[in-house]
């Protein structure tokens, strides 16, 4: 069982595993793997805590109900699965600032958190705008050959590569 305690697997093994997992989610749950809708539902659930039931009248939340569904449980599962994997290999560490970030922008957690919030806002907003994320469009949609997903996934990387070069090679 040494493979369970290895820190890293070949990316091809991880990828093939995710591909096989997608067969099972289609076959058993009749759903493709996706993650970003769960964040939209959570956002609605949090808003409902403060503003009550009228949140459910919002046009967006009539289409994306603020409730715990299959995909929400999937995202919760990712946290657990990653934790188990990291613990088994001794790769679990509490870390405020990623290495590559601190090399260029310093190791101050506050700066990193503020920028992470801004990045998260773009990510949350953009994933709802395009209707999916790197899992829903990038893996599940492209493997179904959906036109929406191929275009979205290509533009995720165009936007991501351009921004990363600007941040790390021009500003940094």
């Amino acid at each position, binding site marked *: 069982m040494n493979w369970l305690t*290895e820190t890293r697997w070949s*990316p*091809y093994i*991880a*990828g*093939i*595993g*995710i*591909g*096989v997992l997608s067969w099972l989610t*289609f*076959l058993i*749950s009749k759903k493709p793997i996706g993650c970003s809708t769960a*964040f939209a539902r959570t956002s609605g659930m*949090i*808003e409902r805590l403060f503003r009550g039931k009228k949140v459910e009248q919002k046009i967006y939340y009539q289409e994306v109900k603020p409730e715990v569904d299959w995909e929400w*449980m999937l*995202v*919760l599962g990712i*946290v*657990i*699965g*990653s934790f*188990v*994997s*990291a613990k088994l290999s001794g790769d679990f560490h509490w*870390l*405020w600032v*990623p290495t590559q*970030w601190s090399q260029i922008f310093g190791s101050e957690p506050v700066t990193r958190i503020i920028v*992470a*919030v801004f*990045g*998260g*806002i773009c*990510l*949350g*907003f*953009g*994933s*709802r705008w*395009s209707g999916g994320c*790197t899992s829903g*469009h990038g*893996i*599940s*949609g492209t493997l*179904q*050959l*959906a*036109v*929406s997903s*191929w*275009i979205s996934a290509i533009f*995720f990387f165009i936007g*991501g*590569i351009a*921004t*990363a070069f600007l*941040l790390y090679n021009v500003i940094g």
Partner: protein
Amino acid sequence: MKEQKQTNLPQKPSRLPLLWGLLFGIIFGFLLQKGGATKFDVIVGQLLLKDFTVLKIMLSAVITGMIGIYFMKTLGWIKLSPKPGSAGMSIVGGLIFGVGFAVLGYCPGTIAGAVGNGYLDALIGGVAGILIGAHLFAVIYPKVKDKILKKGYFGTITLPQLLKVNDWVVVIPVVALLIFILIRLEAAGF
């Protein structure tokens, strides 16, 4: 007795689908962590075109997934569920997502994995940001719903439908192309 208990609770929806979701998520998170995709340095390394781990994981998942999914579709075991799209949704939304992808260094799936890995910038900063971003989209949604999101609308169409050909006429060349890309990446030393 058992039967009676069951009939007493006729309205209660089954929890089983949610448990499957949790189980699949645990496996997904495990594979993402083992593959290295829960790490900021790996994701940003990909966007800087220095470390191709993320692309290797994604393409091998897509190749494997596509063959199996279309095989099961051909056999009539499953139905596809492609997402709808439009030029306005996919291009504009894709670019905004891309900015966030690079600035945050995680995406909505890998950030859940990053939280499980102990990364506090993901938990405290990133998750809060994604929730705020999703909230802002819900706020502006009524204003953009029938305008920019409908620009160049093409719906839930797939490539085989668009080209009006048998599924496998697209699946086989796409799989071959993706394998070719991976071989070239390895040959180039990535």
